């Protein structure tokens, strides 16, 4: 994980050393970024319990996620843009020999487990751009968003597939640096923060659906921190 972050940082640093174009005040801007995130939630599983050794490793894998982001912004002023943002976070893990407690309260079930989780975020966003004079190609920005979060988990437990879905609201905050390569194109690096918990979920095994409301101790926390490389395309410029 650390190696990935360092590589991304070096990439961005190299991009930032490119010769920047001047006089690029955006009016309509499209941003795309990809990067890595880390789920901030801590596992309640006791790693010293040998029944949960495999589960601990499994959860460690789940912390590492991929994220991608699209947003489009309109800048009525030089340093403030408004727009719409979409984020997709995905993470997955698989492991063997998990010990599950069965519903009968008597048996343990031994099986494999795998899951692919997706967190979609969409909502209005506002971006503050500092140091946005045409003479200076290096820009610092802060972006704040609130919106709708959709959670989807494709889980296989002991040879049974289930789909968990849920919805909630979330907030997202990004901050980063961009360097304008051309009049229309800029690259950069940004750090992201997502806060979202899902407490109303739906469990579907392909035949039956069951809705559950999770208490605050068991709700699904999708909050994460991430680092992404981003690219921006400016459709039109201010005169």
């Amino acid at each position: 994980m650390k190696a990935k972050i360092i590589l991304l940082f070096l990439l961005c640093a190299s991009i930032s050393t490119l010769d920047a174009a001047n006089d690029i005040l955006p009016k309509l801007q499209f941003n795309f970024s990809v990067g890595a995130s880390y789920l901030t939630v801590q596992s309640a599983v006791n790693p010293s319990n040998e029944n949960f050794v495999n589960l601990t490793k499994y959860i460690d894998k789940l912390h590492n996620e991929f994220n991608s982001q699209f947003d489009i912004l309109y800048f009525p002023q030089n340093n403030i843009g408004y727009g719409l943002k979409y984020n997709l976070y995905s993470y997955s893990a698989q492991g063997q020999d998990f010990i599950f407690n069965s519903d009968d309260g008597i048996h343990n079930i031994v099986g494999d487990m795998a899951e692919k989780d997706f967190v979609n975020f969409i909502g209005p966003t506002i971006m503050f751009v500092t140091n946005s004079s045409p003479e200076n190609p290096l820009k610092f920005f802060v972006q704040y968003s609130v919106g709708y979060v959709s959670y989807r988990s494709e889980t296989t437990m002991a040879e049974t597939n289930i789909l968990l879905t849920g919805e909630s609201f979330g907030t997202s905050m990004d901050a980063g640096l961009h360097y304008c390569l051309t009049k229309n194109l800029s690259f950069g690096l940004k750090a992201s923060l997502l806060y979202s918990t899902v407490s109303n979920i739906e469990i579907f095994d392909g035949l039956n659906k069951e809705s559950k409301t999770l208490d605050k101790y068991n709700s699904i926390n999708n909050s994460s921190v991430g680092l992404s490389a981003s690219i921006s395309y400016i459709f039109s410029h201010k005169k």
Partner: protein
Amino acid sequence: MRKLSEIVLCILLVVGFYGCNNDFLNSNFSLIFKNTLVSSDSLTLYFNQTMGSYTMTVKNAGETAPYRIRKYPDNIKFSSLKGNLQNNVLTLNFSCTNRYTDPSFDPTKLGEIVVEVEDFGYVIIPVNYFFTGGAELKINKILIDFGTTGTLDSVEIATVWMTKLIYKIIEQPDWISINDSDKSGGLSFYEKKQIKITCNRTGKPGGLYEGNIVVQTNDPNQLFLNITVKMRPLINPDELQPIEGTVADCEYIKSENKLLIATKSPDRVLIISTDNGAKQQIDLNHAPNCISLSEDAQQLFVGSNGYVDKIIINSLSIEKSYNVNINVGDIVYGENNYCYLIVRNISEFSTTSDAAFRYFNMSDGNVFTAQNHDIYTGSNIIKLKGKPYLIGTRPYTSPNGVALFSINDIPTKISYWHDSFGARLWPSENGIILFGTNSSIIQTPDNSTGTSITSYGKLTDGINSYSYNLGWIDLCQNTKSIWATRPDYTKTDYSDIVEYDDTNYKQKRVLIYSTDYLTTVNGINAFYKTVPYFLFSNKTGTKLFAIMNLGKSYNANQWSIQTINLAK
């Protein structure tokens, strides 16, 4: 820029498609058939068991096929969830912990172990758990005596622990019935339960019935609780037969297993075959006081007040009746055509030696008085088998003394020993030893005996050093037993029946026998305590016959004969 937009759009579509595709759920409904082998040999875990092993053969699987445990009760921990069969043998080693289930006396189904064997299928091993728990049982009584009339009673059981008490009646006498719903159950904290117990005497032969209702419980201090139940049908047992009249004397012919009982009112001699119970009787003209057999057991001599009757046993007839003009207290036949008589004592305080010892010639009936005899009225005399000697003892004097007489015709005293060996003496089978009623064992005196008779000690119970007074003695050569009645002076109206070893003279056992006899005394029909006065064993030593009368405290005569089966 347009290309970039298209690429981004494509990525969004792909992500969106996979992000919303539910096809992976379809595999939940795709059936995959796998062999299932259910083991016929369950694994049973016990409370406090910490580890164990289970082995079974999985035929039709690969000899070393890999396996994987897929399901198991959570109180089991396997050393490994995976492994390989060894020559088709599945071996599971595990540790386990306690599981607190509902207590039960039988193993209860806990769950199962499911093992997936590669290229074979599933092996299912049923798992049972044996947990009886623990509780404290309280019971209000452990003895129920239904007596002669009671039919219904109950016991109350309760628990005082927080844990559940379970119980199960596992044994009961066949004359006891208990409702099925009461035979087993469980009681929670401070719960109580009445167990109704019914006594059924119908069709039961007489006798005292005593048995135990055995209750299995999970009380660690009373895992098997005995509730003693007793009852007695209001009839005499088959082995107890009444004897009409008052028993005066008895003899037993061991070679023929015949019991001879002389009774007054009616005056007769009963002859009972103890092999088959057949009874014969010889009616007498006078109330008998005593009887004596000839050595060949063909003739019986009956002494009464003023008369001696000679009876031929086989013909069941009185051959001759002799007027002897004395009240005969004891009689022996000298095998010399003379009978020797002791005058009956009127009272134990008026015993006298005056003309107490008589003899008479059976040819002419002439009665003579013996001289210089040291014999008192009420004395006992015996004849030594095959020898012309009589031995007499005096019950009413102290010491009892022993007098030895030769009886060629006139009884001539050989010697007298002023010592006590008991009121009465019984000779051993070979006649060498005499057993006295004060438990003495002495050498049979003869004309070479000096001033004292050689003593061989006492019949002993091996515990106490003192001498018991015995009531009656009988010897059984076949079992080398000496049977004796031994009055217990610590109990009213009771006498032990004791068996001594004829080789070392130590007590072998005290017999348990019925002392209760259903009869009517002073208009009251009830069970009364009886005491054995005469005791005989049969030739083989398999049966004892006790001639019994009511205890002295009842001041009544109700005689009976009890057959005691020693072979049981």
